[in-house]
């Protein structure tokens, strides 16, 4: 698109990495949503995926490994006019940041969380991530991973998330549509994105995913939570992609007594007379 408002920059990713398509899909999604880049805040933790906020022309916050969600939620809390998007890795989001993942589903601040799920720790050169298949052999899991793979979409639905989707970086058009829906969704929206890591994951490759993924069709009822949980458990010979579950529920802002009327805390000052009243209560 020539009238694109979002620019992307040179990356430090390996040639052939699934991250490139994710960056393209995101840029196209943002353009199609006609967002002003100045109103977009991209947030990442640390990892290969988490570098994405550095590669697109928008505001960015590159914080700590595992800690992308808390500052993102807080940024939205204090300035709801911003579109806040997290791009981070599976290790970052589900491992180091697992507690924030669970509790920000419950907090339901209106942010979109895009997780580049390559089933490995890419930046630290290929150790098992929480989503690694059982038996994955890595420099650390030398006899193969013993742990049960973490199922982020099932977990998210169980914890009460209102928008849970899975995408595949090998289907960029489909992914772009998922991203648009997630950004537009009011509340916490999760898109777990299957992302081949060409350098460190020689099992879950483009070909491996391509043979298995299929798009959920119009028949699929994304409003049925029990069915969505069952569908979320499908991961093996066939892997469903698309919106697994969607159900609007009151957001953090809508329920918050201070924020629900549009209060913007960023740049705000306190009224000294109110502080004085508090002081006089202590007299």
């Amino acid at each position, binding site marked *: 698109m020539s009238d694109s408002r979002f620019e992307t920059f040179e990356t*430090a990713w390996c040639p052939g990495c699934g991250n490139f398509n994710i960056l393209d899909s995101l840029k196209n999604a943002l353009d199609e949503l006609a967002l002003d880049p*100045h109103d977009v805040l991209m947030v990442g933790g640390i990892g290969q995926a988490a570098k994405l906020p550095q590669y697109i022309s928008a*505001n960015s916050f590159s*914080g700590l490994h595992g800690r992308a969600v*808390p500052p993102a939620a*807080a940024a939205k809390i204090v300035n709801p006019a911003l579109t806040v998007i997290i791009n981070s890795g599976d290790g970052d989001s589900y491992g180091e940041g697992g507690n924030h993942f669970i509790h920000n589903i419950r907090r339901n601040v209106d942010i979109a969380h895009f997780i580049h799920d390559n089933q490995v720790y890419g930046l630290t050169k290929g150790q098992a991530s929480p989503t690694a298949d059982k038996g994955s052999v890595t420099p650390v899991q030398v006899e193969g991973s013993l742990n049960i793979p973490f199922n982020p979409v099932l977990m998210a639905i169980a914890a009460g998330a209102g928008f849970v989707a899975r995408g595949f970086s090998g289907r960029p058009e489909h992914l772009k549509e998922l991203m648009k829906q997630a950004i537009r969704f009011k509340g916490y929206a999760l898109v777990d994105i299957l992302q081949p890591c060409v350098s460190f994951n020689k099992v879950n490759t483009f070909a491996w995913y391509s043979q298995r993924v299929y798009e959920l069709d119009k028949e699929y009822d994304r409003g049925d939570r029990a069915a969505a949980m069952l569908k979320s458990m499908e991961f093996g010979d066939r892997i469903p992609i698309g919106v697994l579950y969607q159900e609007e529920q009151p957001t953090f802002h809508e329920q918050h007594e201070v924020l629900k009327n549009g209060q913007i805390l960023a*740049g705000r000052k306190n009224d000294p007379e109110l502080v004085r009243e508090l002081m006089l209560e202590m007299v």
Partner: protein
Amino acid sequence: MYNLLVGGAAGQGVDTAVNTLEALLKAAGCGVFTVRDLMSRIRGGHNFSLVRFGEETPRSHSERLDGIIALNEETIALHRDKLKPEGFILCDESVKTDDSRAIPLKLQGIAKLLGSGRAAGSVAVGAALRLFSTPIDGARRVFEKSLKPGLVEMNVKALEAGYRAVEPRFERVGGSHAGEMILTGNKALALGALAAGLQFYAAYPMSPSTSILEYLASVSLKMGIAVEQAEDEIAAVNMAIGASFTGARAMTGTSGGGFSLKVEALGLSGMAEVPLVLVDVQRPGPVTGLPTRTEQSDLKFMISASQGEFPRMVIALRHHEDAYRQTIRAFNLAEKYQIPVILLSDQYLADGTATMPVPDPAKAEIYAPEDVPAEGGYARYRFTESGISPRKFPGTRDGFVSADSDEHDEYGKIIEDSETRIRMMNKRMGKLELLKRELEEPQLLGDERPEVLLIGWGSLYGPLEEAVRLLNAEGKARYGALVFGDVWPLPDRLLREKAAGARALIHVEQNYTGQLAQLIREQTGIRTDAGILKYDGRQLSGEEIVRRLREEGY
């Protein structure tokens, strides 16, 4: 000045009795200071409070008691050795004691007659106030503020009954404190934060910091601010950083254990140059330690926490007015230099209450940076002469705003080259030099030209003030004390000056290793000659400092 101890089992209403006492003493014009000695339990265990009052607001407790209100027998057994010969013990007539100072009253009997044994504390408070010749005119108003409407009448009557049950014994004291606030150190800090423009507070509950979270939550609707209980301390501090990055004045608070979890993010605030105010209300460590008691053992932790090197400031809070003023200052310094500023409090100050004049929040200075027009596109980490890059917030049309924990260039993009690294390090660390110009010297108490110089910090202000007063009254030598508020960077002008004229330097600290003394030696080469240290979770009193000093031969 008088000293009254109120003791009983947890759940027996010690706190209610103390609140009533404080309010009525203040209404009568007294300056009041109370320390709470709490057990880390909800029920059972021995709790007591020391209420000290007089013409001026006392700033520390004393061990020499004029009276004891004993809501149970244990209180007498535990504390009678500290009661002066002419002191009194107010207790229920059922309590068995051979102490001739006891004044047994029908505390329970009167209370039950009025409707509930729970009003026994009010009977005792009424009697105590009478013994101190203090009027109880404001009683109804006090109870209306603190009790459910159904309980007010009963407690007023209980108080009056106690008042009539004894004769005045001590001369009335009092000053002009009736119009002042009475509040805990944590509330003074919270009010400072609000006056400074706090918009976002995130924390995870941990004693003795929790009452900051609870108080701010209780006023959040009125103030129109966000107060969030985070899923853990790591989330709390990262949320505060996110809020500050986006343009809201933000703070996070905890005690040492929670601070341990925040350490990495402390460095993020330094590296990404996001202003942040962090509160550490110290309690005895390590780990869970003594959860409801006091200590000053986090000083070296605060000045060195987090990997790498970055500028930070650490301010120890000395007393209630200091807590209010320094919190405002912390917000301004954090914002001006785009650094983390740590407020170091402790349980003694945090839970202790004191009377304090009502400050004028409209006069709270709020740092407002000049709006520098962006030249050549906005760059968050623009190299400037001062090293301070103008802040903008996401949403600005002047460009993009970024924060980065990686080493970065002026635009916040990751770099690896040595030249940019060196320039960025110099830019950040240079702010530490600027910060040194903002430092406040420690406060000198006692003699202007001390022969014996005591050195302390934070909430030992009150005990040290009392100690030098007692020592100088004896007239054997000239005593002074330097009490540090700013501890990092360490101001050293007054210290060097007073140390040069003194024959002995003695550090006084609530820890095992003498952390300030070590810091002073590291920063100035000045060595102390002896130390008075305490680490049992109980604050030194002025009298104890004097006693220990004598033992050391000074």
